[in-house]
């Protein structure tokens, strides 16, 4: 196994983990959501890079016998996943706004402090 032939996955994993870290370590709700987005977008990179074919072209059929196309299936899946992601983000942001209105803050620490008393 050629070590360098997997760098795409490894970078994607590094990116995923930065996003994941922001989600669980940050106390700011909006930043958490941004982290979530980075996390998901990096998963998308993982999927898409798995669909790459050396010397391939985008999967739009052309006349010609032996054209090498990239794998279209990951693209379809990720299109769906992107949409799901934006739906989640919109909902999360709307919640963040309501939380700000109800608590006056979007920091987890402040919110906890208010709920304890």
């Amino acid at each position, binding site marked *: 196994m*050629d070590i360098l032939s*997997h760098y*795409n*996955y*490894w970078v994607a*994993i*590094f*990116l*995923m983990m930065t996003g*994941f870290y*922001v989600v*669980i*370590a*940050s*106390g*700011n*709700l*909006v930043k958490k*959501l*941004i982290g979530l987005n*980075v996390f998901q*977008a990096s998963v*998308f*990179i993982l999927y*898409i*890079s798995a*669909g790459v*074919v*050396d010397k*391939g*072209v*985008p*999967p*739009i*059929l052309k006349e010609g016998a032996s054209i090498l196309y*990239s794998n*279209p299936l*990951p693209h*379809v899946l*990720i*299109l*769906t996943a*992107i949409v*799901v992601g*934006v*739906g*989640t983000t*919109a909902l999360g*942001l*709307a919640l*963040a*706004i*309501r939380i*700000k*209105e*109800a608590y*006056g803050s*979007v*920091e987890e620490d*402040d919110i906890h402090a208010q709920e304890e008393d």
Partner: protein
Amino acid sequence: MSELVFVGLFAMLVLTAIAAIRLTDLFAVVIMFSVYSLLAASLFVAMDAVDVAFTEAAVGAGVSTILMLATLVLTDRWEKPRKNKALLPLVVVSITGAVLLYGTLDMPDLGDQNAPIHQHVAKRYLSDSGHEIGVPNVVTSILASYRGYDTFGELIVIFTAGVGVMSLLGGRRKKKKVENNDT
């Protein structure tokens, strides 16, 4: 050639992601995220996923960024530093990452055209969709026909998100009172 593009884009993605972690000005973080999306979109183009690139650009750099900015206007621009820096997140993330790395060890190489992912279902789509569907863009064929049901689900997700946002933010216009019905 494409390898070089990949490496360059990956390097920039890493830099933006790290910047997004470290910044506390959320406005800058959102911009970083927007840049991140655009870079990802470019990467997708380089990886032959033009549809995905288009969508990622429109959604990540477009819709999401606008919504995030709008949220920042309504909430706070600056992130407060946390009182206690917990070690736990770092541990969790390291373990998760390590497991993922372990998982990649048996994966096929990047771009290997003999990888199983290219052999089974996808192969048939590429070879048969032309005469079965008659649409040149295979992504569209799969999206709307072979896996049209998933797309229906995707539409429902968007619908759900719309319903959710309307139920959370709709109805009470221009009222900015802090609710405190804490019973």
